[in-house]
């Protein structure tokens, strides 16, 4: 078995992300009159893209390396976001509309008298950050343990992940849940005492996000480079054969699934700080599928590709929705179709087309006879 060819570029990508963010942050701190000045909105937009990149990385980890097409990763992303949002909500304190020190505004509005137990502790940043990782991780562990053990795979698994995020979306829309219902959590003021609307805060947040992306890249690289990475590849390409060789594919899948949920949760937490709002719409199944297309565009099965795809597609989305809003859905739809038809390995696949074929198994010349169910890929 050869060393995976997709990993070396990862360190370079991590370095580029951090260096780029650092440069951007520094240029942002220059006076506005300076020609190279980067405007504030560009900084927070980039930080938003990078938090999406974490989600893309999470999706890529399970789809690209373990063959699990998730259509529900937005659930982990949004849960992380809600955990962080709860901290930011508590941080508002008496500056809310109702100036209630004990209850967030929406609870006062719903005439609740005391804080629900699951909001306890969210006044402390470390606790909230921990929860932003633990809650998605625990959900992933429970869900994964059930599904992988009973060998639900392929499109069935995809549909169930979609149902999972759909159920959560419906749940979070309910006011009774205590997460702000339809409106979600918003109107945040500051984080750790730093004003969320100050340019400096944004610059620091961009750096933090970039470091998180780089950290996640290096972590996943470390996980995938060893024996575990090869086991995952084996599971992806021939699950039953791997099982017959004496491995436990469900354990490998569960581990990578939970790791992926943790990364997605972190992404969600950072995302909420950047955009200043989290609502149940983040759970929408469409969001999860969009995250999958970022990975597909960038290059499934390459860590750098996930980051690249997330940034590029979202940049395109920002430009498109600004210039030609009614055409964006056409463009996104075309992106789905054209990528799957003509760029099965994404943009990264363009770069090393010759050796890529050896990685995931070249799709043979397509005939309907191919549709005999194999291990889903």
């Amino acid at each position, binding site marked *: 078995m050869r060393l995976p060819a997709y990993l070396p570029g990862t360190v370079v990508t991590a370095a580029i992300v951090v260096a780029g963010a650092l440069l951007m942050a520094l240029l942002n701190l220059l006076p506005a009159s300076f020609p190279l000045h980067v405007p504030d909105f560009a900084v927070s937009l980039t930080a938003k893209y990078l938090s999406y990149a974490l989600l893309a990385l999470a999706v890529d980890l399970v789809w690209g390396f373990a063959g699990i097409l998730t259509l529900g990763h937005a659930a982990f992303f949004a849960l992380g976001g809600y955990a962080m949002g709860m901290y930011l909500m508590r941080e508002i304190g008496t500056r809310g509309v109702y100036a209630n020190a004990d209850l967030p505004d929406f609870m006062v509005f719903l005439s609740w008298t005391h804080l629900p137990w699951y909001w306890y502790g969210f006044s402390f940043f470390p606790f909230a950050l921990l929860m932003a990782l633990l809650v998605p991780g625990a959900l992933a562990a429970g869900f994964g343990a059930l599904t992988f053990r009973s*060998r*639900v795979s392929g499109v069935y698994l995809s549909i169930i992940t979609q*149902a999972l995020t759909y159920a959560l979306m419906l749940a979070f829309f309910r006011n009774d849940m205590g997460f702000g219902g339809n409106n979600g959590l918003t109107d945040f003021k500051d984080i750790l005492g730093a004003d969320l609307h100050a340019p400096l805060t944004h610059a620091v947040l961009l750096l933090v996000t970039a470091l998180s992306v780089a950290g996640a890249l290096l972590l996943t690289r470390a996980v995938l480079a060893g024996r575990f990475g090869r086991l995952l590849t084996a599971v992806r390409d021939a699950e*039953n054969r791997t099982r017959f060789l004496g491995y436990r594919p469900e354990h490998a899948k569960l581990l990578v699934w939970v790791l992926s949920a943790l990364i997605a949760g972190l992404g969600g937490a950072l995302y909420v700080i950047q955009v200043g709002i989290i609502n149940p719409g983040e759970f929408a199944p469409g969001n999860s599928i969009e995250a999958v297309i970022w990975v597909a565009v960038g290059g499934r099965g390459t860590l750098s590709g996930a980051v690249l795809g997330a940034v590029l597609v979202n940049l395109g989305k920002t430009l498109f929705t600004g210039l030609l809003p009614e055409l964006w859905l056409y463009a996104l739809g075309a992106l789905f*179709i054209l990528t799957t038809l003509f760029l099965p390995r994404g943009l990264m696949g363009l770069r090393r087309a010759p050796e890529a074929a050896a990685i995931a198994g070249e799709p043979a010349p397509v005939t309907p006879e191919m*549709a005999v169910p194999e291990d889903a890929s």
Partner: protein
Amino acid sequence: MPDIPAWLRRVAAGLVVACCLLGASASAQVPDPFAGLSQTSFNAVAASVTTLAASGAPRAQAVITALGERRLYAARTGDALYIRNGSDYVDARSGAPARPDPDTIRSVRVNNRIREAVAGALALFGLTSSDPAIRLRSADAAYDSHDPAALPVLDRALAHEADAGVVHRLREARAAALLSAPGQAGKPGDAGAVQERIDAVRILAASGGLPARAILAGLHDQPAAVQAAVAQALSSIDLRLRLWSVAQDLFYGLSLGSVLLLAAMGLAITFGVMGVINMAHGEVMMIGAYTTWMVQQAVAAAMPALAPVSILLAIPAAFLVCGAIGVAIERGLIRFLYGRPLETLLATWGLSLVLQQAIRSLFGPTNISVVTPGWLSGSLHWGGLVITLNRLAIMIFAVLVMGALSLVLRRTSLGLEMRAVTQNRRMAALMGIRTPRVDALTFGLGSGVAGLAGVAISQIDNVSPNLGQGYIIDSFMVVVFGGVGNLWGTLAGATTLGIANKILEPVAGAVLGKIVVLVLLILFIQRRPRGMFPLKGRGVES
């Protein structure tokens, strides 16, 4: 109308009647039932309308009708009443022609309360109609108003009534009116009166339904025996209402199930035969609904006479349009992705976005109004059950479509080839079946069925570019739940999910019910990863 004024009004009317009766027995001199009408107070006029209707005076109906049509005039002084017919007047009491000086009379003014009293009174006159249907309707109206003042009229009507159905309804109306008379807890009350009330309670309890429950629940200050009967009646009515509401939930569940069945059948075919998850399936349904709309518009423009049956014309049209779209999708997109089911899923999702946006560009983002023809609107009432015709029609339609589909699968050569390809694609190809052609036709068939689902959905749901989104997850659930092996799995999956949704809804609320169903489904998949009716055969992986 708020409860208390209505109650007070009834009491007032009852007192008026009581006074009249007392007056009649005391002095033996019949009071003038028309007298109140010439007063200026709205309340007095309204009360006297009820009194007059109950009095049985021969001219009562004509006078009350005239009052309702604002043709009743009163002398400014004295209590003379006139009815104007065009430019002529007649005396209200006798019907004899009269020539009052127009300056000395005034029109009797009418407000909502009087209008209501007039309507109630006129309904009572229907009790003497020769047509049993009108009598029944009048009895219904008397039941609904359950005005104690109408008791004498009801008694008279009961004495003459021959039609069993009307008698039954009149008894209920009489019981309701009797119980609505003011309570007599304070008075010792003779045993006869108490027994009469208890009988009335029993009659109402037997009639069941919410109106009877409302009357019984509103009873206070009754003698203890009556109150006990009321409590018993209430619990028996509540039990029956609960049973009916379960039946109603079952009906809604079956209705939802039939919609899901229509939506999922096409999906089951494409998924079952080709292993292809078509995320654009919902959008094909949406196009079916838009086709229905276009057919309706075209028929309304070209052949207005056919408008009521345009929905029937839309059925083949939607099948053909959507079937053609399905073949185009298969030939243009999906056949390049065989063997890569997950990527097919992504490509068809992209396609769904494009289709949605295309429809939005063509028809606008707002709902369009698909007409429900007259013969499909309205509802049947059966006991406590309300069966809306359009939902009933969709159930029948779903069963017909399923029957037709299973005929196609079992009795045609295409069906044979499709089943062969489902069971073992490679073997089927080796036997000389042209699998690409079967694939295209299968996809066309599945999409055509989606179009039929669109026609059905256009009758009960908003038709907008987002229509497909609302059904796609549910129909996937049906397919996953039922398994892709056969149509029976789809049927079982659709009805189970539909009923489970609707049974849970009243218990847990609509949203929570749906969540519970989804979670149960996720757990179910743990036990049966391939659904209730998994496909068996050599071609199937583990």
